[in-house]
């Protein structure tokens, strides 16, 4: 379980990024997480609530977009999506595929913030 250190890293990065928008409140943090990234969404959500307390992220939503595994199939000369994680074979032709093109991502895609209007 390293979800807590992942969340701590999210808090650091987002806190740094919102410093450019003084007074802004973080509403949502969107992640892109590959199916092979070995993080569990429930644990992330659980840690998120705790780790964001007292930070600019407190009260914000964590949205986790899981990306399927994509491999390159040499036989089909195409990138193909795997249906699960139990067999790294092309779903079209059955060839074993070891050329991973997507699935290990673990990144903050974007954040949504509410900005206070500047007084005129």
């Amino acid at each position, binding site marked *: *379980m*390293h979800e807590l*250190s*992942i969340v701590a*890293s*999210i808090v650091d*990065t*987002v806190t740094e*990024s*919102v410093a450019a*928008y003084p007074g*802004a409140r973080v*509403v949502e943090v969107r*992640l892109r997480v590959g199916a*092979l*990234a*070995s*993080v569990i969404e429930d644990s992330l959500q659980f840690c998120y609530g705790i780790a964001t307390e007292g930070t600019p992220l407190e009260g914000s939503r964590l949205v986790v977009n899981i990306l399927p595994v994509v491999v390159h199939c040499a036989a089909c000369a195409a990138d193909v999506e795997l249906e699960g*994680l*139990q*067999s*790294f*074979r092309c779903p079209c032709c059955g060839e*074993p*595929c*070891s050329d*991973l093109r997507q699935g*290990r991502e*673990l*990144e*903050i*895609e*974007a*954040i*949504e*913030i*509410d*900005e*206070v*209007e500047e007084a005129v």
Partner: protein
Amino acid sequence: MTTRIVELRKGILKKNDELAAGLRANYSAAGVLVLNLVSSPGTGKTEFLEVTLREMKARGARVAALVGDLETDNDARRLAASGAPVRQINTHGICHLDAEMIGKHLDGWEGVALDGLDYLFIENVGNLVCPSSYDLGEGIRVALLSVTEGEDKPLKYPTLFNSADAAVITKMDLAGPCGFNRELALHNINEIRPGIRIFETSAKTGTGIDEWLAYLAEERASRSA
């Protein structure tokens, strides 16, 4: 109040990835092949490394090992019996090694400099989940699986086996008594990581060790060519 979407596109483990890239460059400049050994607790990483270090030393290779452990230095003491330099990394409850820990323990390692080594072995903390996310800058990641822990381990932990460059089956001397289904284990590893090199070994009898040592020598030669 206005709502704004700020695109970040930032890797969450970016700090580790950057440190690992720095380590990788150092290893390559020093001509040292680095291996990261990952498996469940008790698969036989330490036992396998003991034999590997001993045999490599006997063949004149310059070897050293870093060993991660939650609390004890038992594994480091076992490995040091080979005569190779060994340094313990106590993670104090953290379930994996990361690039920062490796960097810190390489710095100021008395009597050991990367450019005086041919191979550096890193025994990760026994865990099948977390170590797979943390790049240590290694050249080869080795996933180990013992005959006693079930042929379906690769299917249960696809991330770890998929991110490995080589697989080692340990405790082959127990294959008979355990009713180990060799074909099934090889099949499952190949389903998760097609084409991976697989070594069937026993640290107790020495089975498969020569083949493993030959692989290491080949890999090192091909990388420094």
